[in-house]
């Protein structure tokens, strides 16, 4: 009854006006506490990355970034992201298609397994590849391997001097692992919510499977897909722990941007480390901006649909 009454403008205010809201003092206090907490843990760190990066001027900044070692780190980061993002994208679409459009047993188990890499420590993510491909690993790739499980594969890899651990393939594999669920977990709930009636209609009207996918499904999921790709890419370019385990830290060869940041930092070249770090921080800000833009776009689409 109170609610009905409070909606009528000519009625007196409800009996306990202060029970459904806080006093201005409490409001101000809570806003203050929230901003202080975020300031100490978010805003100051973000500002300080850029301040520290330019501490020795723009010349030093540009010199750090144009260093050949920095360039090779940037190149390797782009390679790792360039391979892992498309692969996980294809996987995400395939997994979402199978899970959202069909019913089968063990679906919940599959969903849990897809999310698994998120709950595993980055160090362990790197470790598992060392155990499979490393010197004493399952595949036993090197001459001193205990007992290679696949001697022909080990021989071939040894003959061609093809290294996985402490080399670029290991970095790519570790990056694929840590970014594995991003696209799939974005697309699965989206495609489940969209159902399968539109695709079924397209099929009944004579479209082939591929036509249905390209002309019906893809336009429906493109924003979700882009969202997943952006998050996947941010993690791929910024991954540190897993890549650190498998990289072997060979300068100019197996260093990504985050690993290069670590090397500069350990050499007490703090300004240089922050200069490299500012590239990644800028990327993070671009990621957040794109994420916000897609969320707005999605909200607008939903509003239009309703």
């Amino acid at each position, binding site marked *: 009854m109170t609610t009905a009454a409070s909606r009528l403008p000519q009625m007196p205010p409800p009996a306990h006006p202060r029970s459904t809201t806080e006093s201005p003092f409490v409001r101000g206090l809570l806003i203050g506490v*929230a901003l202080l907490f975020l300031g100490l843990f978010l805003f100051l760190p973000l500002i300080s990355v850029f301040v520290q990066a330019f501490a020795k001027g723009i010349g030093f900044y540009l010199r750090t970034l144009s260093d050949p070692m920095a360039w090779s780190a940037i190149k390797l980061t782009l390679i790792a992201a360039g391979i892992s993002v498309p692969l996980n994208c294809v996987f995400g679409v395939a997994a979402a298609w199978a899970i959202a459009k069909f019913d089968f047993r063990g679906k919940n188990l599959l969903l849990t397994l897809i999310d698994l890499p998120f*709950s595993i420590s980055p160090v362990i993510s790197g470790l598992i590849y060392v155990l*499979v491909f490393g010197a004493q690993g399952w595949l036993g790739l090197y001459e001193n391997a205990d007992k290679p499980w696949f001697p022909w594969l080990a021989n071939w890899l040894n003959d061609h001097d093809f290294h996985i651990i402490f080399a670029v393939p290991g970095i790519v594999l570790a990056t694929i692992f840590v970014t594995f669920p991003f696209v799939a977990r974005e697309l699965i709930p989206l495609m489940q919510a969209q159902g399968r009636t539109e695709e079924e209609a397209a099929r009944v009207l004579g479209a082939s499977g591929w036509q249905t996918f390209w002309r019906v499904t893809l336009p429906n999921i493109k924003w979700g897909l882009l969202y997943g790709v952006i998050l996947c890419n941010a993690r791929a370019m*910024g991954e540190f722990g897993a890549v650190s385990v498998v990289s072997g830290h060979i300068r100019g060869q197996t260093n990504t941007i985050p690993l290069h940041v670590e090397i500069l930092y350990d050499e007490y070249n703090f300004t240089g480390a922050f200069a490299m770090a500012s590239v990644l921080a800028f990327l993070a800000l671009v990621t957040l901006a794109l994420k916000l833009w897609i969320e707005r776009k999605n909200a607008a689409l939903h509003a239009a649909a309703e």
Partner: protein
Amino acid sequence: MAAPKNRVLPGFRLTLGYTILYLSLIVLIPLAAVFWKTCTLSWGQFYQVITSPQALAAYRLSFGAALLAAALNAVFGLIVAWVLVRYQFFGKKLVDALVDLPFALPTAVAGITLATLYAPDGWIGQCFAPLGIKISFTRLGVLVALTFIGLPFIVRTVQPILEDFDPEIEEAAASLGANRWQIFWRVILPTLSPALLTGFALAFARALGEYGSVVFISSNIPMKTQIVPLLIMTKLEQFDYAGATALAVVMLVFSFALLLAINVLQWWTNRYNHTGLS
């Protein structure tokens, strides 16, 4: 119930087959290597590795700091979510967008930045130095790093529930004579608690495995400021693969248990949500 088989749409075998193949190659088979490698140790050796004093100290720090960080985030994350949903203030949209920063910012960047800020001569650290409180390169530093990376989890799980919260419920409680504090404790908080717990568990799980940000802000001294992932890394650098793997198994078992708990919590949250909406 949907039909058990749907044959109108093509590609079921192809996509499911590819999903399972890719999942096995990238995740399941390499993960099995951990358990295979552990088998090269006898039970006695395994037990000795995972209960060595250094390992026990590392568990204590990892679990303790992760729990404290998740608790800090639960309190302040709830306040942040509350403020973002209920109040208007200058720059609110920007603040809302930046809450996700720890998800987007690479951990190494977070690590060197926090280490510098909270060092005795850093912007924040110099405020604490006169009080005799050192943050960077101590256990407190580990807590700061873990709080940073867990920050968005609570805010992002509580925020949507708070947005959907029906104000009529509060009005009903008020009309029945409850004061603001009682309404918060007895009406609002119980509704939020599944989401709060889910966020807490997510932040805790993330903090438990965190490596990148902690290595920079911690001094990494064994028995004192060494977390479990770092101990695993140290063993790897000494080519003690079996020892590293034994510790990894312990962490994996905890991760899987947490994952299970989070799934149950999320199911609970969703159920609460639906009953709230209907």
